[in-house]
């Protein structure tokens, strides 16, 4: 397809299907994330990048034969490799023998949180998640350095947009409330900081799309966002450092409260809040950076 716009639309559909697949394979949290990210934020980002570049692809003069050979060889090698894999859903597969049973056993007694994914994410593998949060934070900073924060165009008033105004206003409130629900319900059901941050940012993006970005920038100025993102990382690392100063290991939440289990609860809450804050402000920062930039017209 020459038209990159159509490619992006079809990629959005692919994301819907991928989320359905995750849901069918019991990965509720992953389906949540894929649905929050794939259909909304990815499409918005790709379209904003398309607005700043060219929409139509040039006719390629390349010879695709070599690429086809390389891809076919790689694919054949990989398919040969998968022959030794355990079948889908095999309970005795090597993956299920090592750490996963320990996580499943220890979560009720040590963490006391029903959602094992949240327990592993925030407590057992807290270092990992801290690293990922820092990666997201630095990605936001890099986009800001590359594109600048930009400034909003004056939004021209259109009188026949009234229906959207009326519909979108409660919808934004609903999205924000839903994001908070996902954030704080993450200990008990599907959800958590990563999903909540993206959904919260989607609410702000929806508001700027319909009411104009200058209004959103009045509510939350762009210069605050890097600081908010940094604050999120700081909250995460600070929670770790707190137990460090209390004589425990870094990111060991047992020291946060009197009993280990309530300490874990508090620690997971704080850490997830840090993750949510960082993800929200980074996604919104990236959106501001792309939509605040003027398109350069080349001859």
């Amino acid at each position, binding site marked *: 397809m020459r*038209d990159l*716009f*159509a490619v992006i*639309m*079809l990629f*959005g*559909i692919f994301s*819907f299907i991928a*989320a*359905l697949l995750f*849901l*069918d394979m*019991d990965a*509720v949290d992953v*389906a*949540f994330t894929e*649905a*929050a990210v794939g*259909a*909304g934020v990815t*499409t*918005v980002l790709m*379209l904003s990048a*398309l*607005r700043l570049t*060219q*929409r139509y692809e040039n006719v390629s003069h390349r010879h695709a034969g070599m690429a086809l050979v390389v891809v076919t060889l790689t694919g054949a090698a990989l398919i040969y490799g998968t022959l030794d894999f355990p079948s889908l859903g095999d309970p005795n597969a090597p993956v299920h023998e090592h750490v996963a049973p320990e996580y499943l056993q220890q979560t009720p007694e040590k963490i006391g949180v029903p959602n094992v994914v949240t327990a592993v994410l925030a407590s057992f593998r807290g270092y990992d998640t801290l690293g990922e949060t820092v990666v997201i934070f630095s990605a936001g900073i890099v986009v800001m350095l590359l594109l600048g924060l930009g400034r909003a165009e004056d939004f021209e008033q259109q009188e026949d947009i009234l229906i*959207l105004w009326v519909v*979108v206003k409660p*919808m934004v409130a*609903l*999205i924000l409330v*839903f994001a908070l629900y*996902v954030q704080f319900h993450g200990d008990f*059901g*599907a*959800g958590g900081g990563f999903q909540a941050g993206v*959904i919260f940012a*989607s609410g702000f*993006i*929806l508001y700027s*799309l*319909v009411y104009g970005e200058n209004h959103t920038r009045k509510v939350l100025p762009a210069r605050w966002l890097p600081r908010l993102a940094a604050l999120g990382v700081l909250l995460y690392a600070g929670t770790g450092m707190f137990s460090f100063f209390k004589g425990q290991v870094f990111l060991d939440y047992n020291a946060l409260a009197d009993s280990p289990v309530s300490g874990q609860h508090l620690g997971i809450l704080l850490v997830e809040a840090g993750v949510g804050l960082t993800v929200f402000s980074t996604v919104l920062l990236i959106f501001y950076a792309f939509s605040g930039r003027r*398109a350069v*017209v080349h001859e």
Partner: protein
Amino acid sequence: MIVAAILALLVTMALVLTRAFIGPTVYDRILAVNAFGTKSVLLITVGGHAMGWYSYVDIALMYALINFVGTLAVMRFFETHDPRHDEL
């Protein structure tokens, strides 16, 4: 009956996907993507109920909200009048 509803939804999704592929205008594609999103929400609701998926309603709710945001974003792309994007 629930199986019939799921089958109808799957067939509809295939039809909508065909429309998304053949176009011919961009508006057809946007319409198809939006319809596909709605059908996914319905499939999650009906299929999730039939198969007893965990917390399927939450995911369906979020799908509905995010689909709304995504489709509106695509439309804003066409409202910013840029001469380079005027072709269909």
